[in-house]
């Protein structure tokens, strides 16, 4: 199966960036699109949740929170083999958290396959952002002499841009339901995929800039950035099986587990674990894991899913 059209835009940006083309998209466009994507994902999830909410949901959310925390600890244990405590903790927080855009590309992937998925996955996306950030800070601080600024951390995690927009979108979508969404859909539904394509063009340019920095960060981090995602995807699939998700939902949970944050986590870590080197996390999560998941990962995890779900 050929690549999703939106992934081609990513490759265009990546190629232009690596060739040092004179192409720089305005920062305001990047920021506007990221606000849009977060809101749109939240809204769609909220509308769907309003239809399908169930009492078991609280338990499932708990399981997903645990998954995020456990993945962070696992990543930390691996990274401590070579990295200092603070650096290992900060990078681990990135991998325990999630990438909204990778999720969006996986959704687009499923749509092309004609595979449906449970709307609560959007809720899982929102709740999986946070636990890794908190666990990361705890791992950085335990045994150290620096104290945790809990107030600032809570603020950063709960009131960070992606959390506010995802949760706000969920609430609004849930409040207005399908009827209220209708007038808003020309922007939040119809334009979702093409605006994602524009965003991915810019992500390609940003990725190219980060790839270059891998030279300075060393081989260990590169190996981690490529080995962790498939392993975490399997953990995601295991959890999905426990929760009795459909194949589509399972793929998305696998992608959430496999993906690494590059919006919420960098901001939170810079504030809560400032002594960690931010170049490490970004080179890994944005420079390698993000393109890997987009191009190789999603189809790979889908083949895993099909095997396990017997499709």
């Amino acid at each position, binding site marked *: 199966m050929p690549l999703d059209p939106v992934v081609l835009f990513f490759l265009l940006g990546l190629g232009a960036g690596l060739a040092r083309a004179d192409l*720089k998209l305005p*920062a305001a466009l990047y*920021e506007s699109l990221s606000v849009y994507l977060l809101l749109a994902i939240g809204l769609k999830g909220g509308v769907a949740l309003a239809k399908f909410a169930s009492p078991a949901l609280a338990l499932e959310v708990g399981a997903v929170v645990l998954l995020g925390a456990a993945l962070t600890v696992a990543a930390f244990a691996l990274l401590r083999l070579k990295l200092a405590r603070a650096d290992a903790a900060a990078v681990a927080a990135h991998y325990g958290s999630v990438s909204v855009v990778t999720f969006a590309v996986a959704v687009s992937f499923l749509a092309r396959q004609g595979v449906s998925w449970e709307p609560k996955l959007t809720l899982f996306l929102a709740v999986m952002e946070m636990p890794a950030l908190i666990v990361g800070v705890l791992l950085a601080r335990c045994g150290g002499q620096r104290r945790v600024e809990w107030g600032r951390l809570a603020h950063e995690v709960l009131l960070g841009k992606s959390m506010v927009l995802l949760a706000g979108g969920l609430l609004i979508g849930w409040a207005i339901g399908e009827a209220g969404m209708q007038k808003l859909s020309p922007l939040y539904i119809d334009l979702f995929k093409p605006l994602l394509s524009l965003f991915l063009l810019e992500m390609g340019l940003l990725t190219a800039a980060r790839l270059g*920095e891998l030279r*300075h960060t060393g081989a260990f981090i590169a190996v981690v950035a490529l080995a962790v995602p498939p392993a975490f995807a399997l953990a995601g699939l295991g959890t999905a099986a426990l929760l009795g998700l459909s194949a589509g939902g399972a793929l998305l949970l696998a992608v959430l587990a496999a993906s690494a944050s590059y919006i919420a986590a960098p*901001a939170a870590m810079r504030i809560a674990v*400032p*002594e960690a080197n*931010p*170049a490490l996390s970004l080179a890994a999560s944005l420079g390698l894991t993000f393109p890997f998941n987009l191009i190789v990962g999603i189809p790979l995890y889908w083949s895993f899913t099909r095997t396990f779900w017997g499709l």
Partner: protein
Amino acid sequence: MEYHHKKLLTIVCEAVLEERLSRDVRRLGAHGHTVTDARGGGLHGSKHGTWSFDRNIRVEVICDDAVADAIASHVAERYARDYGLVLYVSDVGVMRPERF
């Protein structure tokens, strides 16, 4: 034209520090501050200015020598170890000295 001597303190640092620095300089006695967006490069690598944590700011404070010293040592102690940061002072002349 008579100018009165003041210190101009300039801090170039990661944008993530904006809110904290703004609060700090006022708490330490400055009556105002000016911020511009910047990009650049130094010992901590390049800041391209394209997204939030890849951006610098340039903070300027006009103040007395004593306040400048207080801010400079606070910044050096509190932020200089963990964050990409440059700080310098210079002499300027102002017209309404009472307002700084």
